């Protein structure tokens, strides 16, 4: 019985000791085994690990990609146009030993602050470099700039035991004071475009109208020409016909045509004639005899 009373507590103590001498490192973690603050073991692979109970401590760090958003900072590219920029970084703890040495017990919070200041510095440096203008930032070269920031930040962050996986710019905006001016410019551009549209509309309309008017004039002139030609031909033909017919007896034509002309010319009520009785027509009216006497005598 005595034995049992000793054995049971002994087993319990042994069990506790066994349990506290193993630890599990998750896929998402890396672990350090510390002995009175001294790093004795680095466990980067997941699985079971062993340590000396009571004396050694296990510290675990996240092995996943961590995110960090920078504050918005104003940068001045070489063309002196200020821009508001913010970025985010993706980083992971690459070297736990160095990380621990760099940040101590503060953990990732401390590292975050340091990384933040590294990033701000690199962003300012890269975006404020000589050849970099705001046009460069607002172009396809942005990717190049981001990569440059990433590479420089990566180099600086190595001392923290951090691997900067990626740095990307998010906002690259004008300071809010400049927004109104930009809006005003955009409005002016639109107004110009609107005025241009209307002017072009008028231009096109006028061109179409002028063209139409010209076409009208041309068409009519063409028609007039054809008409005159036709009339001329007709007149010529008529003249030919007349000449052929009348040429047979010009003297008679003269007489005959005169007679016709009298009829038409002296038609009706609108004519008044003052005549002398000596006209041939009155030969008989005044002579009083029936003898042919062409010379009319006075009464």
């Amino acid at each position: 019985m005595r034995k049992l009373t000793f054995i049971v507590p002994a087993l319990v103590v042994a069990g506790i000791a066994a349990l506290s001498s193993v630890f599990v490192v998750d896929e998402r973690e890396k672990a350090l085994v510390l002995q009175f603050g001294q790093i004795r073991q680095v466990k980067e692979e997941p699985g079971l690990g062993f340590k000396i109970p009571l004396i050694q401590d296990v510290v675990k760090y996240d092995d996943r990609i961590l995110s960090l958003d920078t504050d918005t900072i104003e940068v001045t590219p070489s063309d002196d146009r200020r821009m508001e920029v913010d970025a985010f970084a993706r980083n992971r703890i690459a070297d736990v030993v160095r990380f621990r040495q760099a940040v101590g017990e503060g953990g990732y919070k401390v590292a975050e602050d340091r990384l933040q200041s590294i990033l701000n510095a690199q962003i300012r440096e890269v975006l404020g470099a000589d050849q970099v203008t705001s046009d460069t930032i607002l172009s396809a070269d942005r990717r190049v700039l981001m990569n440059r920031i990433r590479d420089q930040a990566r180099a600086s962050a190595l001392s923290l035991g951090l691997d900067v996986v990626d740095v990307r710019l998010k906002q690259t905006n004008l300071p809010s004071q400049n927004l109104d001016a930009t809006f005003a410019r955009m409005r002016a551009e639109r107004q110009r475009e609107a005025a241009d549209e209307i002017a072009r509309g008028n231009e096109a309309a006028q061109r179409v109208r002028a063209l139409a008017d010209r076409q009208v004039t041309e068409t009519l002139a063409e028609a007039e020409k054809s008409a005159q030609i036709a009339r001329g031909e007709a007149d010529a033909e008529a003249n030919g016909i007349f000449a052929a017919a009348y040429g047979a007896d010009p003297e008679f034509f003269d007489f005959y045509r005169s007679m016709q002309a009298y009829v038409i010319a002296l038609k009706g009520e609108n004519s008044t004639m003052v005549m002398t009785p000596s006209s041939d027509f009155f030969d008989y009216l005044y002579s009083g005899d029936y003898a042919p006497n062409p010379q009319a005598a006075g009464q």
Partner: protein
Amino acid sequence: MSGNSGGPWGGGGNRGGSNGGDDDDRNRGNQQGGRRPGENQIPEIDELMNKGREQLRVLMGGGNGARRSSGGGGGGGDAPQFGAGAVFLGLGAAVVLWGLASFYTVKPEERSVELFLGSYSSTGNPGLNFAPWPLVTYNVVNVTSERTESIGSSGGVRDDNGLMLTTDANIVDIGFQVVWNVSDPTKFLFNIRDPQQTVQAVSESAMREVIAASNLAPILNRDRGAIASTVQESIQAALNEYDAGINIVRVNLEKADPPGDVIDSFREVQAAEQQRDRLQREADAYANRVVAEARGQAEQVIQQAEGYRSQTVNNALGQASRFSAVQEQYALAPEVTRRRIYLETMEQVLGGVNKMILDPTLAAGGEGGGGTGVVPILPLNDLLGKTDQAATATTAGGN
């Protein structure tokens, strides 16, 4: 779900009680393995489990105590008789608890990731899954469900986050949604800590990058579709670079508009475009009308001329023929015919005309010379005034 997954770990925490200082680290890792990064209340669950185990131990300890007390009191080895029921009860409860902690279900839209002593062992499919606690732990990840991140202004909400600067230094108001799901639950769990925040940040960055490399005008109209697909590729590429196990299903570019402050000006341009169109169409209408009219008029003129031609020629032919006919007859008896024609004509002419016959012998300077000296007054004005048309006063002199 995370409560379940935390259960075994709570046990682990208890077991490793000697290094309790590390609990925080472990809990963080654990809880962030779940689907919701950013929540930090796992310690409660931990405590809960500790309590549970405490009670269990009390139960077991009760059995032990009973045995010990019986041993102490009776001094005999027949303690099991007395404690058997409690021990079975305790064992049964332990088995049930162990079973509850070890069996779990995975819904159709989910996959589970099992870790054997912290390292990846297998991926569990939908259905009932078995992960013997405490050796195997598991995380359940919702894989196929689509999750949505909204960036910039969407719907009726105006958000200055959507204001982005273009290459030509204009500002465009962008609102878009990124729809994503999990393509690889292990990568998703093991490689990134803040998946949602990562998608959000990468999406915004990608969109701003694309916008910054483009002019304003194409963004507003023809490039919309292209932008969405470019951004999607860009986001996907970045996430693949992180080995995030995230699949971007689609990018909905909900809004790509001029900012509210200038949108009226853009509408004015549209109105101006309409006006331009209208002006052109009106001019076209005018042209069509006038040109058609002119063609009609031209045709009229030509047809009139043709009519004239026909008329003139026919008239000439008629007259010529008439003359020829008359002339033929005239040639047969010229004297008589001539006289007859003359008289007939005079008859016709003088029949309807106002006549005034003056004998010159009566006039002063008359033909005879020695006249009576009567001076005839011709009231020509009166005569002419009779007709408003230009009247002809013809003096039919001798022959």
